[in-house]
């Protein structure tokens, strides 16, 4: 257990210049031309958000009937840090060689991982960063690990097709990347894959992982996934999580 980096009962407030001053900055556009009434409207928006000592730092015409604002203010709210409930992906982290050796020994075979960008989503940057040999930010991708049999199916893979491949290849884990989030298309798409896995009767055998710039663990779990990884995630974090999940299904704990 890591030593806690906060005090029990600690109340948190944003920190600008001095502890607990509550200073926050905001920027937004109002669909009116600039002027004193517009400035007051911007300030009022901030006040209604609970900000005090509001200061409209910039008011600029962003187009003929639109004004861009930068607003500063102080919020009086505070947060009980210890009382928050935060589902977190708990990953015990091993290095590249250590994880390979450990997983091959404990699982006794290579772990099959399938990755794809599903549905209509054509943005393969995220899945590529996690899956491809080269990886991301100097951290090797899953294809590079001896303990994984990793296949990246790329972009615009249909959910039914992905589920079928998972069954055919007896996948242990499926990684789904969702980048396009307009009108929550990513949520529906993500749920659909789980439905397909259920339909084939393999949901229980496959660890389902969701990733993307607007994904976090909480959302992924809400959608029915085993884990969610947001922006900046390194392949090694996903690798460690998958090994832990596979061991857990085997009734073992990752040490």
């Amino acid at each position, binding site marked *: 257990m890591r030593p806690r980096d906060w005090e029990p009962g600690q109340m948190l407030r944003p920190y600008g210049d001095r502890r607990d001053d509550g200073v926050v900055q905001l*920027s*937004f*556009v109002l669909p009116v031309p600039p002027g004193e009434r517009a400035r007051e409207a911007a300030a009022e928006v901030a006040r209604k958000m609970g900000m005090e000592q509001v200061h409209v730092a910039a008011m*600029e015409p*962003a*187009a*003929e*009937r*639109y004004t*861009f604002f930068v607003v500063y203010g102080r919020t009086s709210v505070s947060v009980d840090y210890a009382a928050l409930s935060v589902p977190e992906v708990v990953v015990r982290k091993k290095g590249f060689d250590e994880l390979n050796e450990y997983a091959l020994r404990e699982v006794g075979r290579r772990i099959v991982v399938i990755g794809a960008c599903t549905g*209509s*989503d*054509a943005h*393969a*940057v995220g899945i*590529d960063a996690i899956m*491809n040999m*080269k990886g991301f*930010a100097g951290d090797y991708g899953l294809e590079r690990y001896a303990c994984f049999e990793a296949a990246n199916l*790329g*972009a*615009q893979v249909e959910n039914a097709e992905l589920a079928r491949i998972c069954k055919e290849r007896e996948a242990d884990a499926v990684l789904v990347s969702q980048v*396009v*989030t*307009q*009108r929550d*298309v990513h949520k529906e798409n993500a749920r659909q894959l789980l439905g397909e896995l259920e339909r084939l009767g393999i949901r229980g055998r496959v660890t389902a992982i969701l990733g993307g*710039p*607007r994904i976090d663990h909480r959302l992924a779990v809400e959608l029915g996934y085993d884990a969610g990884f947001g*922006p*900046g995630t390194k392949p090694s974090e996903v690798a460690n999580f998958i090994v832990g999940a596979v061991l857990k299904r085997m009734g073992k704990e990752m040490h």
Partner: protein
Amino acid sequence: MLLTDGRHVPDLPLDRAAVDRCRALADQVTAQVLGFVGRHSTVSIERTVLRLYGLHDAGPRGVPLVNLAVDALHEKRLLGRGAAYWMGYALRRGATDPMGVVERLVALPANPEPLPEAEERAMLEEMRREARANVDELRARVRRRNALKDELGVGPRPHKYLIVATGNIHDDVEQALAAAQAGADVIAVIRSTAQSLLDYVPHGATTEGYGGTYATQENFRIMREALDDESRRLKRYVHLTNYSSGLCMPEIAFAAAWERLDMLLNDAMYGILFRDINMKRTLCDQHFSRRICALADVIINTGEDNYITTADADEAAHTVIASQFVNESFAHRAGLPDRLIGLGHSFEIDPGREDTVAREFAQALLVRTLFPEAPIKYMPPTKHKQGDIFFSHAYDVMADVVGYVTGQGIQLLGMMTEAMHNPFLMDRYVALKSADYVYRAWRSMGAEITFRPDGVVQRRAQETLREALALLEEVARDGLFQAIGKARFGDVAREEDGGKGLAGVLERGPRYFNPFLELMEAR
């Protein structure tokens, strides 16, 4: 170096013999492909021919008439004669309107009775005359566009290019006008996700698109008319661009040409590599779509920037250059002059490394120097963008500086919220404001800067050119199909007979008839 538009960029000495050799090799590569293209057609090319004849509408359930007609011909293996021939045939047999043509084509037997020789000759002449009239009308529309551009004038280069992507064409118009008022020179309407894989062009105005707005002829018309009005009000011509890519490359090129768009994303290899479209299909389609762009004075933008979002930007820099030579040669073979060949590249080297600006300067200047007349399109960083919008903004400004000093033609402005969501109004505003600052502040620096002989920038550019030459030697030896099979571009491998859309490729018969191609090739 002095550019023809009067801008100065720093000099970059290059090995002339190596540059000439790159061009000669690229010509060899495309010559092999053009042989194939000349013997084949595709369903999308034939649909475009029918659209050029005025079959714009959709039938029951929204299926475009051209799809109904061409699918019927293809199924009966009649398409090798050319859709134009069969349209003429249907007219001779009594069709009087587009729906009548379609009905007759659908009802054709597998072995239609041939027309009497004299009648056939007269029919072909009639179809040629009609084609000439329609091309003249298209050219007249393009002249109207160019006249407005000449009358109002355009903004300073690089042209500031901004994206709208709401999914509703009417909201797109509102955002595009706001962007134009804030200084945008080019508006791109992002297409709905996965449109590239549709083997038809949706019909009508879009109000519910995902990830963007469908490229349809009606959407093009709505946006161009709104921008015409706004251009007149602002007394500055605002360009419009869209995407001629995917399975309907040439049809979208036609719709764009007809509705007076100024530019089109159009890459010879992008669909193959990044959308897994069959290479034979795309290579045929790109040629015909570029013929239309040449006819309608539309600037094409190629997609080499995409290579370095998959492969490492620094390691794959030479693949961008090699591909640009190939794209240039394909464009020349389709009749496009240099002033319409907007080769693409981008500012994508991992910002966590050292000396990235020197290496970006080297790359941007190399592209500029190799293709001095081309309206080069420079893309901002995307791959290494994350949620810190403040850093992201600074990072975009760095790309603006490199683009401005190296005299690029079109500068796609980076969005500080790139990694998060479609651009907001305020994202565009701050991007335009800082780009204007860069253009003012760096005004004379292109002419002032001299890079040290044998310094980091010059050596890096020369090294990239050498590597591009080596790659082109290999591609010319193996052929383009094989080179793509070996993942030489963008780290993506594709098979000759894999991917989507191969079923839509067909051999031209000995009496293939395409009067538009005849006119375009004679230009």
